[in-house]
């Protein structure tokens, strides 16, 4: 018997094309255009939009344009890895987009200084110049002046 372990390289991927539907599709299309959308629910505009109201399961309504600024409601500080949206250490955060209910999960760049992160801080989206219709069209959020 040998102590050697065999190993093989493997790339984790999601090799499917799928139709994202009218709600998420329009949201992703909005990202490509540099515009965030929420979806109407009985409680207000939900961002990011879901096809169903999470509390009741009721179908949600039409999409409405919303601001690209918001407030951090929770955050966690992490080390930057290759391929992350920010090249230095940063926070993953939940961001309550202004005028909406719910919170958007994204990265917040404070220049690598965790001391600048706080619940309740104001942030705004930093958009990429080249956008393709996915979440990474927002590079990250940054401190709003």
């Amino acid at each position, binding site marked *: 018997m040998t102590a050697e372990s065999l190993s093989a390289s493997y790339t984790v991927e999601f090799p499917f094309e*799928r139709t994202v539907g009218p709600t998420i599709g329009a949201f992703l299309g909005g990202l490509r255009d540099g515009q965030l959308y929420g979806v109407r629910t009985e409680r207000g505009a939900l961002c990011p939009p879901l096809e169903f109201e999470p509390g009741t399961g009721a179908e949600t309504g039409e999409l409405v344009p919303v601001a690209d600024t918001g407030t951090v409601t929770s955050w*966690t500080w992490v080390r930057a890895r290759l391929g992350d949206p920010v090249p230095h250490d940063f926070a993953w955060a939940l961001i309550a987009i202004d005028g909406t209910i719910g919170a958007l999960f994204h990265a917040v760049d404070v220049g690598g200084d965790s001391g600048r992160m706080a619940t309740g801080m104001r942030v705004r989206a930093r958009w990429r110049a080249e956008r393709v219709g996915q979440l990474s069209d927002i590079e990250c959020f940054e401190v709003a002046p």
Partner: protein
Amino acid sequence: MRDVAVVAFAQSPCQAANRRDDMAGILLPVIREAVDAAGIGRDEIDFVASGSHDFYEGRTFSYIDSLDAVGAWPPISESHVESDAAWALAEAWSWLQLGEGDIALVYGIGRGSLPADLDQVMPAQLDPYFLAPLAPHRDAIAGLQAHAAIGAGLTSEQGMAEVVSRCLASALDNPHAQRSERVDVARLLDAPYVSSPLREHDVAPIGDAAAVVVLAADDAARRLAERPAWLRGVDHRMDTHYPGVRDLTESLSTRRAASRAAEFAGFLPSDVDVAELHTEYSHQEAILAAALGLNGAELNASGGPLAGRPVTATGLIRIGEAARRIFDGRADRALAHATNGQALQQNLVCLLEGEG
């Protein structure tokens, strides 16, 4: 309703990585031990159910390998869930309720050590539109939950370290634990963050192990165990997937599952002597204890997941550990909780009871 009980439980030691055995090799001795403890032959098992996640192995139907340890010829009645094996136990419980058979074997086998980088693997459990494309760090969503739990006054970094210190000390008596030690809270708090406010010890250590539970109904249960651990109530519920649209500081699905399980059982989580909670992170103990309304129960006396988290076997081990305390008379009533998904998205609650 038929009375269904856990009549035997076995598990392999939790290892950070088992490079010696394949899936069937890890599982086979554990099945033998559980079947021997129940004193049955394999041909007496009417139904087999298992749980595993393909994404740790990076291939579909990865659990098929484990069937070599079950023995599937001549053909057996068999099912599988892509989930923690506690959900396979819920399926086996339902199957026994149908009255097609009397004895079921449930197993969970996980090899979380296989991926070289869990940060590449864990986003595979997230939705492919809003979360997976951002590829969050493996513990990031739990980090948000811990931060929110501290903000809500449910716990603190000190309180989380106290949970870890208590669990690792309890695990000294558990020969299957992956981690166990006496460690000062102050020393734990000196460690760096991995995803603030989580430190490495706040994260249950992922690894490799298998667990097996034998269930039996009515007279079969009385025949196979001296003191069966009767599953008086079993229920599971889920919260919305996206972490931004639910309150991360309370687990509504746990509360709902517990309430439904209590309706079946005729007693409440506040009545149990011991509780085994599937805490993938130390801060989740406070969230779960609040959602369940526990009242003085001994928590994770085995050390719990913070002492060893073999993927997809960890929830089933909670049920086995709770049952073990009923087998040996240390408890009359016990609660077992299992979770699946990120930040306590899906939750299962079992209420168990011994007689006499």
